[in-house]
């Protein structure tokens, strides 16, 4: 298993595979299926200061090779996450990355300050890229200066390293990445969902009650790979990559692009066992590639022109 162990700011991971925020709740449902301590880490659902109900339904719609969601950051609020969900997760001895969100800078600061004090929260994930809420969210993620300012404020209060989750809905992802690095981010997570929409022919109206939603799943993988490839060459903080991962091969592709760890979102809905499956398959894939440790793959697509050993699936 040591071929898979990874160290990142605040995180000692036995493997680089974790469920992505919002696709795993707080882990309770998936604990029916497998032992959560198998996971590299868990990115828990976005937490806001107060409980939120989120958007009206329908909240999901399928698209070719992907899905749209407009959950709208439904969550039980800071207090309940701190007092109930996090203590419950403690039994699994797995690092928790707490996804934090809000409508104002103050919201983020409040949640960050408190959640970073939880004993099993190893890092924060600053969600400045949620496309499904009216205020905050994505607004912070599309303007470099706002992104940097918010990162700074959160860094000031956080007792654990801060990863900033980038939105792909921007002209220049590199400038946002550099801005949050300058703001003190310890790492990046990318990508959040692409803004999309589907219309229902039966009614002529959007399928989602929120009209637009966030696109995720295999269809966005090429966009994620491209952005991680670009950003990883321009920043010196690590990237946790996500966007359409369905297999151990996909995890390798994200590493080659420049990721140092990976998260699986949508595929958890298709196959609840996907994370442990990928973790189990990774060593064999690495062996085929002729690498001893998965971290050797990070950025390999641009770091050196040394080709990998010939690989056959």
């Amino acid at each position: 298993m040591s071929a898979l162990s990874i160290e990142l700011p605040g995180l000692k991971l036995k493997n680089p595979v974790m469920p992505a925020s919002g696709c795993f709740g707080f882990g309770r449902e998936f604990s029916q299926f497998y032992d959560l301590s198998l996971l590299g880490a868990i990115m828990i659902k976005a937490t806001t200061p107060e409980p939120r109900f989120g958007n009206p339904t329908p909240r999901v719609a399928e698209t070719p090779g992907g899905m749209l969601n407009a959950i709208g950051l439904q969550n039980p609020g800071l207090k309940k996450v701190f007092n109930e969900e996090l203590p419950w997760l403690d039994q699994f001895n797995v690092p928790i990355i707490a996804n934090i969100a809000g409508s104002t800078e103050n919201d983020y600061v409040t949640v960050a300050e408190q959640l970073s004090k939880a004993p099993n929260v190893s890092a924060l994930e600053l969600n400045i890229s949620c496309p499904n809420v009216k205020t905050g969210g994505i607004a912070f993620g599309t303007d470099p200066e706002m992104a940097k300012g918010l990162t700074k404020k959160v860094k000031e209060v956080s007792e654990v390293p801060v990863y900033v989750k980038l939105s792909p809905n921007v002209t220049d992802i590199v400038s946002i990445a550099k801005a949050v690095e300058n703001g003190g981010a310890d790492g990046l997570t990318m990508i959040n969902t692409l803004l999309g929409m589907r219309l229902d022919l039966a009614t002529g109206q959007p399928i989602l009650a929120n009209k637009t939603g966030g696109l995720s799943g295999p269809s966005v993988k090429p966009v994620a790979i491209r952005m991680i490839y670009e950003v990883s060459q321009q920043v010196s903080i690590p990237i946790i990559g996500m966007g359409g991962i369905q297999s151990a091969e996909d995890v390798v592709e994200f590493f080659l692009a420049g990721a140092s760890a990976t998260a699986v979102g949508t595929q958890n809905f298709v196959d609840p066992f996907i994370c442990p499956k990928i973790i189990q398959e990774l060593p064999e894939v690495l062996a085929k590639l002729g690498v001893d440790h998965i971290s050797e793959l990070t950025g390999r697509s641009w770091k050196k022109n040394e080709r990998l050993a010939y690989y056959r699936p």
Partner: protein
Amino acid sequence: MIKQEICKVVSNRQIADNIFELVLSGGISAEMGQPGQFVHVKTGGGFDPLLRRPISIASINEGTFTILFRWQGRGTALLAEKIPGMSVDVLGPLGNGFPVLETKPGETAILVGGGVGVPPMYELAKQLVKNGVKVISVIGFQSAKDIFYEQELGEFGEVYVATVDGSYGQKGFVTAILNDLEADIIYACGPTPMLRAIENGNYAAKTYLSLEERMGCGIGACFACVCHTKADPKGFSYKKVCSDGPVFKAGEVVI
């Protein structure tokens, strides 16, 4: 317990206009007990389509179970093409079904099914009758060509049929029939307007409704399928159709 299993197709036949009856075999059937639960079905091999499809369990047998579905889009089209020997990836049983024991032996239950809300009524009727409950089925369809399981439900008691266009049975909606019946309890599954009408109609002392909502995970993790509770219709409290439901007591959630 919820299981994921690659089930084998035992049979697949068309039983009405665009309606198919698919019998699957697998150890997963041993986990099934409560009528009204559903399975989450991967209809294709790759990512076309990507998500699973929620389909009610219509009948549970030794080593097999039956689902009935309407060919609607890509997913159900792929299911309709399945032939014996092919395999289907099934996750289930999911959710909380109809409370069978809420009805005492000797009492009367009306089972209301609208369109593809009919399927769970078959297993429910079977179990109720086994418990000594008198079962009346009231099923509604668009038109004569859409009717299915009238005879199958007839094994367990009287069956009334309504069609919207009046081409068979009572013209109109199931509620037209409910006005003339009496029962201790109503169990219903069908389109939301039908469920609302039944809730508002107060046709029995106790009513249980099975809801439909677009789903992501089907297991309670993604928050795609939430609804407000009647106690707190604008607030933060909620129920998930997939894992708290799909069956709720009338009055419990906002529909």
